């Protein structure tokens, strides 16, 4: 690790720390319907949305009504995205003349679920599949609204903790509209202009053929990239305009755009932790969650950075530098860009999987085994470290419920969290969410490791589902495990060597995304409804304080314990086995110096 690399990670964290409070206050005011500095220009737009949508924002909903509104909106979104993809040949802004041929029904199904669930898993390569119209009117829209719906659910859960003896948890349409109009639109507009000033393209011209200096022909792509890039990060969506995602210079041209994209990923999730504390009437509660997330974030970032900087011993033996010097980055540069180097790439990989973003500025598949273990573990713990817009806070609150439950068992008291009694119903719902996610990851990964379809047939043309991996040995299992962890966690990043554009993978990954979004989150809305109805208990000497280091430690312990018990066997067969293989004497002697 270099001094400069460490400085980039530390400064990044400090900026997130400084932004958490002002952003949290802003979010809190927006979702309570209070005036903010953005109300003068945007209040009319908000009112217009309610009028055209035909809803009354003041009408409070029970958790079931809130959930049904969310499901109805997701269903409508799914139909829109599916239809626009399949009909792209008949729609405007299609200079490359793509049609239904590029988008098979199973791919369209997968992509529609993917963008509606805020996963943005991409089984396709954007530049050779979708017209500009699909990218704008189907995918960019979902970048906004699936993120807004995610924030809405978090806000509803926060209300569950904050309200007392209330039957309702807010209005879905109001939360959705406020998140879009006051948070994501202004942030994306600013972000898009900044990104473009640094070199991200924003044009509707078709690809431009040029003759290179050496006389070959190169296509310079066009497209409305900056407008999608900004919301891709701010909404923790992660679906790139191009196949290479944020590694593509037209999506992420400079180290500064890289930094800003990473800040966009974390700023709203970090703000939500402060908003949580503010809403439950004790900001220390929010900071405790922030602290637990920070510890795990920094541990992951430095662990990943260390192993990536250490590099690949087999390449070192061939005479490739692994030590960083003033003139070159050293380390494992396969799959990484020179402008970002090792530190920025390791940081981005950690950030994008801590949050459920899934944008990548380097190819995780080519990380060293333990460097790649960090993003994988982040996915498996449910992306609770800041998390996607809303998803991380929800996941972390779920672990907080488990943590106080475990603590309650140890001392023999009914557990409480921020003044709410945690009873059988809440713990049961929390377990449903956790088990559904774990089962989705493990069962699908196991099936895809062993199923054998006939080759050249519909379900999986390569034949056995394990034949779709790009790398031999334990890394192949890592690719499959990563895919289902990413889909279930609604992340969308990949160990991208896996050929996932076959009907089997498109459908099962689509199901995993569905489970991760709805089977994981609906129980949380149930918890919100149940908690909102409860009284607030007075703090007594017997109450476990949930704002101190003891609770932070307990919370981190719970996250690690659950993840370790569930996933350690799978991890030891994948990345851990691969690590020992990489550093074994056998592998080293097989390479000629």
């Amino acid at each position, binding site marked *: 690790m270099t001094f400069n690399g460490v400085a980039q990670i530390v400064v990044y964290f400090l900026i997130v720390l400084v932004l958490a409070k002002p952003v949290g206050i802003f979010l809190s005011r927006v979702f309570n319907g209070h005036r903010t500095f953005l109300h003068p220009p945007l209040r009319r737009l908000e009112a217009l949305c309610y009028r055209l949508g035909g809803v009354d924002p003041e009408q409070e909903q029970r958790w079931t009504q809130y959930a049904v509104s969310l499901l109805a909106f997701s269903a409508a979104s799914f139909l829109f995205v599916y239809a626009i993809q399949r009909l792209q040949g008949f729609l405007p802004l299609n200079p490359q003349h793509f049609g239904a041929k590029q988008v098979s029904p199973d791919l369209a199904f997968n992509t529609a679920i993917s963008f509606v669930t805020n996963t943005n898993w991409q089984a396709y390569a954007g530049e050779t599949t979708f017209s500009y119209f699909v990218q704008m009117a189907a995918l960019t829209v979902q970048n906004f609204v699936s993120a807004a719906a995610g924030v809405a659910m978090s806000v509803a859960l926060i209300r569950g903790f904050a309200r007392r003896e209330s039957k309702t948890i807010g209005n879905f349409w109001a939360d959705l509209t406020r998140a879009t109009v006051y948070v994501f639109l202004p942030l994306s507009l600013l972000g898009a202009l900044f990104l473009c000033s640094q070199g991200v393209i924003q044009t509707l011209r078709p690809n431009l053929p*040029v003759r290179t*200096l050496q006389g070959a022909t190169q296509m310079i792509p066009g497209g409305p990239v900056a407008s999608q890039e900004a919301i891709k990060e701010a909404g923790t969506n992660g679906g790139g305009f191009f196949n290479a995602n944020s590694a593509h210079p037209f999506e992420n041209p400079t180290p500064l755009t890289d930094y800003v994209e990473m800040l966009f990923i974390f700023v709203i999730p970090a703000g939500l932790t402060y908003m949580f504390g503010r809403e439950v009437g004790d900001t220390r509660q929010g900071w405790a969650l922030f602290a637990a997330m920070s510890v795990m974030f920094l541990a992951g970032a430095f662990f990943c950075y260390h192993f990536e900087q250490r590099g690949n011993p087999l390449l070192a033996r061939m*005479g490739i*530098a692994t030590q960083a010097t003033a*003139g070159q980055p050293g380390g494992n540069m396969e799959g990484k860009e020179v402008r970002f180097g090792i530190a920025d790439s390791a940081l981005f990989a950690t950030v994008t999987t801590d949050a459920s973003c899934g944008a990548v500025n*380097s*190819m995780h598949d080519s990380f060293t085994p333990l460097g790649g273990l960090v993003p994988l573990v982040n996915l498996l713990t449910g992306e609770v470290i800041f998390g996607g817009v809303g998803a991380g806070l929800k996941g972390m609150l779920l672990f907080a419920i488990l943590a106080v439950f475990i603590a309650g068992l140890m001392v023999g008291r009914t557990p409480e969290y921020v003044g709410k009694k945690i009873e059988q119903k809440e713990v049961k719902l929390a377990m449903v969410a956790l088990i559904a996610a774990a089962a989705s990851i493990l069962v699908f990964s196991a099936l895809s490791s062993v199923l054998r379809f006939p080759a050249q047939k519909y379900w999986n043309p390569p034949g056995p589902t394990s034949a779709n991996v790009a790398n031999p040995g334990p890394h192949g299992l890592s690719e499959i495990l990563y895919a289902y962890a990413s889909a279930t966690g609604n992340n969308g990043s990949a160990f991208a060597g896996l050929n996932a554009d076959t009907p089997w993978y498109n459908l099962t990954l689509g199901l995993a995304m569905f489970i991760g979004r709805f089977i994981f989150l609906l129980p949380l809305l149930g918890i919100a409804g149940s908690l909102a109805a409860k009284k607030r208990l007075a703090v007594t000497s017997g109450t476990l304080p949930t704002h101190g280091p003891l609770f932070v430690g307990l919370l981190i312990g719970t996250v690690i314990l659950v993840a370790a018990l569930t996933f350690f066997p799978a991890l030891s067969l994948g990345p851990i086995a691969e690590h020992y293989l990489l550093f074994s004497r056998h592998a080293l002697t097989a390479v000629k110096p």
Partner: protein
Amino acid sequence: MRYLAPAFRFMLLFTVLTGIIYPLVVTGLCQWWFPRQADGSLVRAKGRVVGSSLLGQTFTGAAYFHPRPSAAGNGYDPVASGGSNFSATNPALLSRVQTAVARFRRNNPAFRGPIPADLLTASGSGLDPDISPAAAYAQAPRVAQARGLPLASVRQLIGQMIQPRQLGFLGEPRVEVLRLNLALAHLARAPASRPSTITTDPR
């Protein structure tokens, strides 16, 4: 129905607002304020567009600085972006690097010591426009010899072309290969020293 009607109305509304109005407003503003960047940071030489300063391109002749290996299409294809996705233990990666190392040593006999990490590894996008300063210096003797230029002036040119870390601490120092090769042509103004063997290597 009570829920589906507003769902479809909101969907249509947000499609217009965030899917059509927002990207078109951004397109208009970007084309107005940052026309060069919005269009792809195109580089012109000898009166024509020769590429983008953000996208690498293939250079193979001894008289050019070479970029990193590319896994994008047949090499530096911006509409087939992507990395190799080779894992650290993949034999395909090892043999690719082994071959590249042998070729690099053969073509750059003046260079000793470990080869800069970026030069023989493929980037994530397959379009990396940059190489590290060390990777440029490593190729300087070959380029100077092929062009009949003094080594010192080639090294000096590299020094001028290094882009430092942004804001002093972000990212890594780098040299843009296309601009470096263009600047080389100015350095080699005499027509006698024009490179005669430029081949397009099919990789």
